[in-house]
């Protein structure tokens, strides 16, 4: 079954082709791109469209590769030994499967999302090489060998904070999500706000792209910020006319808090708009 845009999620042709290839060839798909281009969202939508379970493994700076496989809960075992519980004799009672294990043994082919892999230590991707390649690993405590019944669909996202090792990249498919163009963005906005006035949308988009073109911004506003902003505009009952005036006269933008997240950016934008 081919993955494509849904009622609530717009996907570009190239991205759809990438996802379909990764699903067919059973390779992990690595997604990079500006924050707010829908990397994480993609995995959810893919799971929905395939009617599969989504297993989300969010990576933090302290996450270890081992945690994705399993964890051995020594504390409960010690406690149970004090309480004289019978469970204590079987070590497998204290082995907690991680997300990778869960995805290997799921009855139906699931979607496994490894979110923001670049947050972890620089060696983290290397520690997962074998597991992602062979889709199998060994549990030392019990001597078990876990092998994937069917290879899960693996989606990996990265914000480019750290460079990833070559050996890891070789085993993935890679797609760089570009920031959507005006047309696509209008489509996305319409999906989220079906009753939005077309005029307001056009004005808002124009202002939005003007903002993004200002050089030297610390954090360019992205799709999610645009959506928040439109939501606020609607809630505050601001109409297209007001936006148009603001754009032409360079007066203060309404509700910029939703778009600009850095004080320096707010200053910069005000300065640039005053000059124009």
């Amino acid at each position, binding site marked *: 079954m081919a993955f494509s845009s849904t009622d609530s999620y717009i996907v570009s*042709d*190239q991205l759809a*082709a*990438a996802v*379909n*290839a*990764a699903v*067919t*060839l059973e*390779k992990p798909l*690595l997604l*990079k791109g500006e924050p707010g281009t829908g990397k994480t969202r993609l995995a959810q939508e893919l799971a929905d469209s395939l009617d599969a379970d989504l297993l989300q493994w969010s990576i933090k700076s*302290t996450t270890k590769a081992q945690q994705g496989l399993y964890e051995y809960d*020594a*504390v409960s075992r*010690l*406690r149970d*030994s*004090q309480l004289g519980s019978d469970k204590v004799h079987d070590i497998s009672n204290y082995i907690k499967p991680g997300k990778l294990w869960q995805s290997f043994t799921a009855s139906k082919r699931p979607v496994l999302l490894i979110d923001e892999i670049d947050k972890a230590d*620089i060696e983290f991707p290397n520690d997962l090489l074998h597991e992602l390649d062979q889709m199998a690993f060994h549990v030392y405590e019990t001597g078990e060998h876990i092998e994937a019944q069917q290879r899960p669909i693996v989606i990996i996202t990265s914000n480019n*904070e*750290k*460079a*990833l*090792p*070559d050996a890891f*990249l*070789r*085993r*993935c*498919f*890679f*797609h*760089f999500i*570009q920031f959507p163009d005006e047309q696509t963005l209008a489509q996305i906005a319409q999906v989220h706000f079906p009753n939005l006035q077309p005029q307001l949308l056009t004005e808002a988009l124009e202002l939005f792209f003007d903002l993004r073109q200002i050089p030297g911004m610390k954090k360019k506003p992205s799709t999610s910020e645009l959506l928040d902003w439109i939501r606020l505009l609607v809630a505050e009952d601001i109409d297209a006319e007001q936006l148009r005036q603001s754009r032409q006269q360079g007066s203060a933008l309404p509700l910029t808090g939703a778009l600009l997240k850095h004080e320096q950016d707010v200053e910069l934008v005000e300065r640039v708009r005053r000059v124009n």
Partner: protein
Amino acid sequence: MLIEFFQLLRSHGVKTTITEWLDLLEALSRRVVFADVDEFYYISRLILVKDESLYDRFDRAFSEYVERVAQVDVTEKIPADWLENALKRELSDEEKEKVKQLGSLDELLKSFHERLQEQQERHQGGSKWIGTGGTSPYGAYGYHPGGIRIGQQGNRNRSAAKVWDKREFRDLDEDASLEQRSYQIALRNLRQFARTGAPTELDIEGTLKATARQGGLLDLQWQSERHNAVKILLLLDVGGSMDDHIYQVQQLFTALKGEFRHLELYYFHNCPYEGLWRSNQRRRTEQVPTEQVIQTYGDDYKLIVVGDATMGPYEIAYPGGSVEHWNEEPGEVWLKRLLKKFTKAVWLNPQPERYWGYYHSVRMINQLMQGRMQPLTLNGLQQATDTIK
């Protein structure tokens, strides 16, 4: 299969490997794409390129490959109706109107075929032959409104030809973009782990001991997590001759920032004097006295100076030698003061080592550093980490 394409990619500097190559062949054999050059472009990029900064090179290689393929004699191999259908699909009504300038579409195609047969080699410019950049109605990037474009489409169509010819990723292309990771790996050598912060980790050994002491009653012991405790004071030379090395220095800085939590950065120009600054935009207004920097940071900080050390010898040795201001004390005095406090120090020089001998100032600085100057290369960085470990 497609070996030429593979070699073309590698010659354009897209370092794709055999493994990835076989993946692509598998994708083709499983009919993930079939007879669609747009999709072939996306899929081959997906499988063969793993870094967006290489997308532009891939686009160039792909364009060249497609051009070569296009030079195969198409008149014999492509049935006429393929071309016609493809063309009709791509032309809007408006464009079809324009085509009429040259007569009907059929007529255009007919003369296209005739000329294809007449023409023996690749052609560029001119007003009759099929090729690129000319005013003939046939070819690419031409100015004839009623022309047939081959290979390159101008606008609007969702065509791969458009995509790779647009070269949208030009800005992302940087040479040797993978340096950052190798720097990071080299810097790991410096790591020193220490346990700081709130105890959140189970200390198994401690728990065993404590439990035994309690006569078997469980007594949990906790310890704090291990963190990299190395502290770095980084002095960066900016401006002037350092402009040539900005990229390298940026890579180093990114790698340092990723690796060390305690990283203090100050800038100087050519040689450190009595003032340093934290923000290069406000260097005139917000200087920090070097004395204060020496006081602020403990001697457990490791000092890394990055500069090309290329200047007039008087900038190091004489009062008032600075090119920017009047300095009461010569640069060497300040450098010595810094080195006295921060005994673990190294000077990284982005200039290739073979040029060092030509500059008197490089030799002077290296002497002041007691030989602890290293080139800003992977090897040099490794040696540097050994020096300040």
